[in-house]
């Protein structure tokens, strides 16, 4: 049930989800005008935010694949990966919210 991976792999995965989900949130925020989560001011255009979001997702996955050769070894148990994923997504949301608030959105 529990198989905790090396801390290095767990940290890499956390960063993957943190950056990747920030990108997902930006794409959604631009598409549905969720100003409280927007990091870039688009002046009504969707492409800057969408480009930022897609870039973050691509960068996150690419970096993880290159920097984590251990990804082909036994992965974490469901509980561990769920915990890492949910914590990173909530943190990504908090970062978007706080940054948007500081930018006056």
């Amino acid at each position, binding site marked *: 049930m529990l198989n905790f991976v090396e801390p290095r792999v767990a940290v890499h*995965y956390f960063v993957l989800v943190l950056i*990747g*989900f920030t990108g*997902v949130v930006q794409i959604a925020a631009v598409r549905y005008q969720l100003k409280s989560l927007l990091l870039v001011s688009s002046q009504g255009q969707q492409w800057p935010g969408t480009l930022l979001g897609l870039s973050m997702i691509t960068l996150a996955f690419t970096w993880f694949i290159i920097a984590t050769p251990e990804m*082909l070894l036994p992965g*974490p148990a469901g509980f561990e990966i769920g915990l890492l994923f949910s914590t990173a997504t909530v943190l990504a949301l908090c970062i978007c*919210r706080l940054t948007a608030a500081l930018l006056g959105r």
Partner: protein
Amino acid sequence: MQSSCQLDMDYRLFQFINRHAGHTPLLDAVARLLVSDYLLTTAIGFLAAGLWFVGQTPAERAPNQRAVLQGGVSLLLANALVKLVNLLYFRPRPFASHEVNLLFYRPSDSSLPSNPAAVGFSLAVAVWLTHRKVGGGMLFLATLWSAARIYCGVHYPLDVVAGAAIGAFAAYLIVRQTPVLNRVYDWLIGLGERLFLT
């Protein structure tokens, strides 16, 4: 539990798919990425979590947000059902009984049902029952992940079919048959809206 004829057919189908592994470096490299415990799970998770924000107004977002929560609960139920089946029946992995082209590490738990298939399909079907587009994307990724498991030599085809069936059943139960959880979903949705979207 299965007739030897069915198991034989299952092995023949497995061989038909797995025999290609180990001969084409590019295809093998792609399959190794797809079969990993990290990438497609995370992609499916991103689609599910991203669905939370789909909609211009709280009223438009609410059914999607409920689908995300139902997906999470379905995943837990699917996991529990897989564990229950594992207590009753153990099937050795393909590499434990045959010479296979193995492109992954050697899991030691029961081959049937496939836990990744159960997890992937529980989340995907739960979302698909509410949002066809995003759910369709998740179903595609779950199918890709399951197929990679066969190609890489860690599951028989019947294992992923059984896992997918368990996942879909769990999703159907949670989405259609448990209205008692709606109050919990609504409370969580309200909390999320207040914290992040207002």
